[in-house]
């Protein structure tokens, strides 16, 4: 990370090195925010990501309402009960909605174009946010045509897994 920003020790200021603003005709002060974080995953999400590393998509079931939620949850958002029953979910599901992202911005997690979608995995009671891919996305009109025919998708795993959400590379049409 060190190469992505530099510290101006004199002005006590951070500067992100791979980003420039367009020239302005009035006087401005560049002041980038660079902050380190160390997020605690807690037991539930640690186990969920361990599962991804092993090529498994894990959810948890609420013992009260019986709903299966993915990503796995510590507690049911409706019943507020602990969700301690772990379920391995099928890696296929249907698309609830999708959006083609075809513009760039700073800090984007993926090079556009890409499709972000809500995917309802079989046996789950909610949908999961992830990418749709595995075919040519360069022409928006063709993408629209193709997506009209797609209803079912299947997880494609990344070659290298790090125990994070990108261990699933994307979902591809079945």
């Amino acid at each position, binding site marked *: 990370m060190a190469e992505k920003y530099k510290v101006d020790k004199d002005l006590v200021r951070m500067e992100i090195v791979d980003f420039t603003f367009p020239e302005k005709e*009035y006087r401005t002060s560049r002041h980038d925010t660079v902050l380190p974080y*160390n997020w605690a995953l807690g037991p539930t999400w640690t186990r969920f990501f361990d599962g991804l590393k092993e090529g498994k998509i894990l959810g948890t079931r609420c013992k009260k309402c019986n709903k299966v939620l993915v990503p796995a949850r510590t507690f049911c958002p409706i019943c507020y009960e602990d969700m301690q029953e772990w379920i391995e979910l099928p890696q296929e599901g249907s698309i609830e909605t999708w959006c083609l992202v075809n513009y760039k911005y700073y800090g984007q997690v993926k090079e556009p174009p890409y499709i972000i979608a809500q995917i309802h995995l079989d046996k789950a009671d909610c949908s999961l946010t992830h990418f749709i891919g595995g075919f040519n996305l360069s022409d928006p009109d063709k993408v629209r045509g193709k997506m009209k025919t797609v209803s079912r998708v299947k997880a494609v795993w990344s070659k290298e897994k790090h125990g994070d959400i990108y261990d699933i590379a994307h979902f591809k049409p079945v």
Partner: protein
Amino acid sequence: MAEQKEKPRKVAAMGMVPYEMALGPTWTRFFEGFKEKKILGTKCNKCGRVLVPARPFCSRCFEPMEEWVEVAQEGTIVTWSYVNYTYFGVTPDMIPLIGATIKLDGVDCGTGMWTQIGGFDIKDFELVTKKVKVGARVRAVWRRKRQGNFRDIDYWKIIE
């Protein structure tokens, strides 16, 4: 199914967001003044207070503050503190430093936090406590090369 194999993990991440803030006419002029070794304030035509840094409007009367005043470069220490610890973005070579609020002569507020005391070996803490006192007189020492920012005043020198 993946069993819980280890203690809950933490994930390291870096939040990075670029910003470019407009200084606006008042603060642009204030920093232009720095380039010419001038400390500029503005005066409220209602309550008569002169404030530094210059303000577009009076914080109490809400009146525009359009009368520009060049103020004295000498003043009195209202308060000071000695910073001797690091955190993300602050490395050991950036400390210690002495932050101070200074009431400039003829100005109706303190400088706030951008002013630093210097001009002697501030690593010598005994010396610091001898020289730096609330009520001590100080004078601005400008940098030779000025770029129109708060560091154009290198430090405030104690007038013995």
